[in-house]
């Protein structure tokens, strides 16, 4: 069976390499209020990994020094870090566009009180998980009551101007298939989300469709259901060379909670840091070198190149 590397070589005539570093993605910890069945990092309330203030400051120094245009903050649930405001404000002060990836429901937790207003004041782009528009499907994957809670938070964000034309406050949503299947056409799903959420009084900017990554808790499910082989065969069959240019790993560097550098958040789950020829810690961040790096790949990379891609 051909490896991902060999498949890419055949399509590109060479290995997969970075195209630049325009996004610094910071995974500030694996603690989360939810335990989603599709989580590639197996995040949950029991996870203790959190980014320290020192590591955040190293990341902010890198953003300032090298003028990184975008800081993309993820987790776990980043809102459960007591240092999130410090990080967001620091990145904005450095002139970066800031994205926070939210599971929505966490914004109802006491620890997140006032955060939506803080996001608005800082002009943060919110990328929110809403894996389906059928409530029962969302609750099955993320836990009972999650869908209604998510809708209430979306209404609150809309109330602050998020997702509304002319406010500049961007609210994007993320769809994940409710099982070991690939997403349908993005436009069709986006139209459906727009129609069904409008009926709930909710608006948003764009919908991103992400295939479920065969790592972490989702991989455990695939192994348990004896579906790993057929899922991997499915994504392998759906390999689309047109996705290679836009792969997120070619445009960003992902920083783990402890400062280790990765090609993407998925490689964190497999503990595959950036190639050894590059400095591998945020304290030694070298965007010039990283912009020329060879991307470290594995079998799981076929998920990102399946169909329309998961860029």
């Amino acid at each position, binding site marked *: 069976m051909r490896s991902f590397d060999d498949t890419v070589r055949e399509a590109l005539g060479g290995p997969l390499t970075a195209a630049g570093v325009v996004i610094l993605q910071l995974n500030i910890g694996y603690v989360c209020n939810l335990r989603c069945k599709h989580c590639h990092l197996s995040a949950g309330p029991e996870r203790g990994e959190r980014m320290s203030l020192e590591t955040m400051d190293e990341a902010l120094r890198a953003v300032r020094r090298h003028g990184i245009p975008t800081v993309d903050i993820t987790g776990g649930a980043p809102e459960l870090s007591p240092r999130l405001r410090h990080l967001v404000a620091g990145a904005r002060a450095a002139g970066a566009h800031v994205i926070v990836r939210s599971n929505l429901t966490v914004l109802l937790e006491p620890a997140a009180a006032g955060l939506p207003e803080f996001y608005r004041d800082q002009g943060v782009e919110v990328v929110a998980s809403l894996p*389906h*528009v*059928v409530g*029962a*499907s969302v609750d*099955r994957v993320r836990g009972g009551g999650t869908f209604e809670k998510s809708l209430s938070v979306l209404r609150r964000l809309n109330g602050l101007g998020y997702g509304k034309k002319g406010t500049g406050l961007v609210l994007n949503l993320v769809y994940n*298939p*409710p*099982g070991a*299947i690939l997403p*349908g056409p993005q436009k069709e799903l986006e139209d459906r989300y727009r129609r069904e959420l409008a009926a709930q009084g909710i608006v948003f900017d764009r919908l991103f469709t992400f295939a479920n990554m065969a790592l972490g808790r989702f991989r455990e499910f695939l192994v348990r259901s004896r579906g790993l082989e*057929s899922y991997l065969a499915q994504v392998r*069959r759906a390999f689309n060379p047109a996705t290679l240019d836009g792969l997120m790993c070619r445009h960003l560097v992902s920083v783990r909670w402890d400062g280790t550098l990765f090609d993407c958040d998925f490689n964190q789950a497999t503990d595959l840091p950036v190639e050894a020829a590059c400095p591998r810690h945020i304290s030694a961040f070298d965007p010039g070198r990283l912009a020329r790096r060879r991307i470290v790949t594995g079998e799981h990379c076929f998920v990102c190149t399946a169909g329309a891609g998961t860029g």
Partner: protein
Amino acid sequence: MADYYNSDDLERFGEVGKYKPELFRKFMEWYQASLEDGALTKREKALIGLGVAHAIQCPYCIDAFTRECVAEGMDMEHITEAVHTASAVRGGAALIHGLQAGNTAEKILL
């Protein structure tokens, strides 16, 4: 059965069009159009597809429409109810033929 039904063949459906591509193209156009949102939603059509797939006992269709139902946000409860509906119709169809047997028997039974 394994020799007759191979799950990988579902992905090879397009090969049926090898010798009569125009006929296959017409079929696919019609097939796809018939499953689009209309007076019935895609979700309702996925359930009808699943029911019919069971009634005609086509393993490829069962595989494809189960995936379609999952993509539409349905779970085992929906899927099981659809299978029961299809089975009930099939069962009813067999049972009503009891009248046929009765009609014949009444003519010949002493």
